[in-house]
């Protein structure tokens, strides 16, 4: 821990909601003795210990790996998905981004496709459904073939890898003024469409995944680019452009009705 670490007091305004069917409300807490060296989630752990000591219900929020790779953490912090830092998940956010006596508003992802389960925990099954709608990829079975038998350009490999960095946290939906899931869906379409293994079903996949996305009640993308700006993995808008192309081709050139 660095010597510059400070102890601060923060005022929290948390969204509390018992379950899916009840109405939520904001609850205020003042938390003293927060180290600026602690992570944002550690601060919430500290709050929960306090709540438990006071015999109150702990604040529910999602988290798992706490190292920015699983995509479980999901808080709207002062109106920004994953807080104020760029390319950072909530679990990677530290209290040094805040000052003494700051008020911090914590809200869940707001989307009709992500119903609140409890407090700031939301159900992101919709994302799984979008992925499932993509279906299979055709691969050669039998012995593993020679790696060089499938030529892939370095550029495409890099682009596919960049798209695959998406951890499916839902920050794109949360930050989008239209609650659109285009960045997520387009990353999942792109990571396969760019590689030879995924090319076979590329059009069909784009069409099916976009259809699923629409049916699940996400909004329509209008190119605000808030998703890209809030994405903890810096997923690029060019994935959305690629999806728009793939979708058009899928619809216009499809042999089936």
């Amino acid at each position, binding site marked *: 821990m660095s010597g510059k670490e400070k102890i601060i007091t923060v005022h929290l*305004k948390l969204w509390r909601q018992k379950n899916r069917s009840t109405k*939520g409300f*904001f609850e205020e807490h003042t938390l003293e003795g927060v180290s600026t060296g602690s992570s944002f989630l550690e601060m919430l752990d500290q709050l929960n210990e306090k709540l438990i000591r006071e015999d109150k219900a702990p604040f529910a929020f999602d988290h798992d790996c706490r190292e920015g790779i699983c995509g479980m953490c999901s808080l*709207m912090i*002062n*109106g*920004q998905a994953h807080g104020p830092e*760029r390319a950072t998940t909530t679990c990677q956010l530290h209290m040094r981004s805040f000052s003494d006596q700051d008020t911090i*508003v914590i*809200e869940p992802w*707001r*989307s*009709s*496709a992500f119903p609140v389960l409890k407090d700031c925990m939301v159900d992101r099954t919709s994302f799984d459904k979008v992925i499932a709608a993509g279906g299979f990829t055709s691969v050669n079975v039998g012995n593993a073939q020679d790696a060089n038998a499938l030529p892939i350009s370095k550029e495409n490999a890099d682009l596919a890898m960049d798209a695959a960095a998406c951890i499916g946290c839902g920050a794109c939906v949360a*930050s989008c*003024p*239209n*609650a*659109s899931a*285009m960045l997520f869906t387009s990353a999942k379409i792109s990571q396969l469409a760019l590689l030879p293994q995924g090319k076979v079903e590329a059009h069909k996949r784009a*069409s099916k995944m*976009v*259809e699923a*996305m*629409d049916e699940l*009640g*996400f*909004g*329509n*993308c*209008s*190119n*605000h*680019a*808030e*998703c*890209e*700006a*809030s994405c903890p993995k810096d997923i690029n*808008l*060019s994935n*959305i*452009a*690629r*999806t*728009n*192309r793939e*979708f*058009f081709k899928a*619809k*216009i*050139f*499809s042999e089936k*009705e």
Partner: protein
Amino acid sequence: MMVSHNYLTSSIGKKQIMAITGLGLVGFTVSHLIGNFLLFLGPDAFNTYAHTLTSNPLIYLAEVGLGSMFLLHLVLAAITQLQNRAARPIGYLAKKSTGRGETFASKTMAYTGLILLAFVIIHLINFKFGSVYESTIEGETVRDLYKTVIEYFSNPLYVVWYCFAMVALGIHTSHGFQSTLQTWGLRHPKYTPMIEIIGMLYAIFVTVGFSACAIYCYLQN
């Protein structure tokens, strides 16, 4: 070629149609502005142009095309707006822009669009269906639209409203133009910044161009 049944109802299909109709309206706006520049050359040049345009029977076809583009753009915008609202029934208490994404133009598309809708209706009432004067050019009787225009802009309030609507047009198209290309899948690290600049220049061109015409007419009184 078979357009799948759900292309038009899909989010991307709707956006692509909105983009294309928007681009069509952008094209119309430019030709309209160039026509308006004839105001600077005096009544005869402007009236001859207006007469040639309106006496061509193809004008009806063009009007129907333009009207349907406008309506389609509007209806799709209304549908997507309603869907987007439904997609987030409970808003945020503290929503804050990242500053790296949405812009004033992108956030106000619905409002600038509504201003333009009001503008187009008022504009048609004032000019197309406005006061009719006649003048004679080379022995032919034509509508003196020039007089209608000059007369209209003698009221400074109309000039202000007109310029205000043109600023809305500029703001609307500054997002619309680059958004159109993105929606059609045209994005490139090298060209997209250039496209954004072209969109911005276009927006400034139409705003300044139309406003200049209105102010010029006001000064003719």
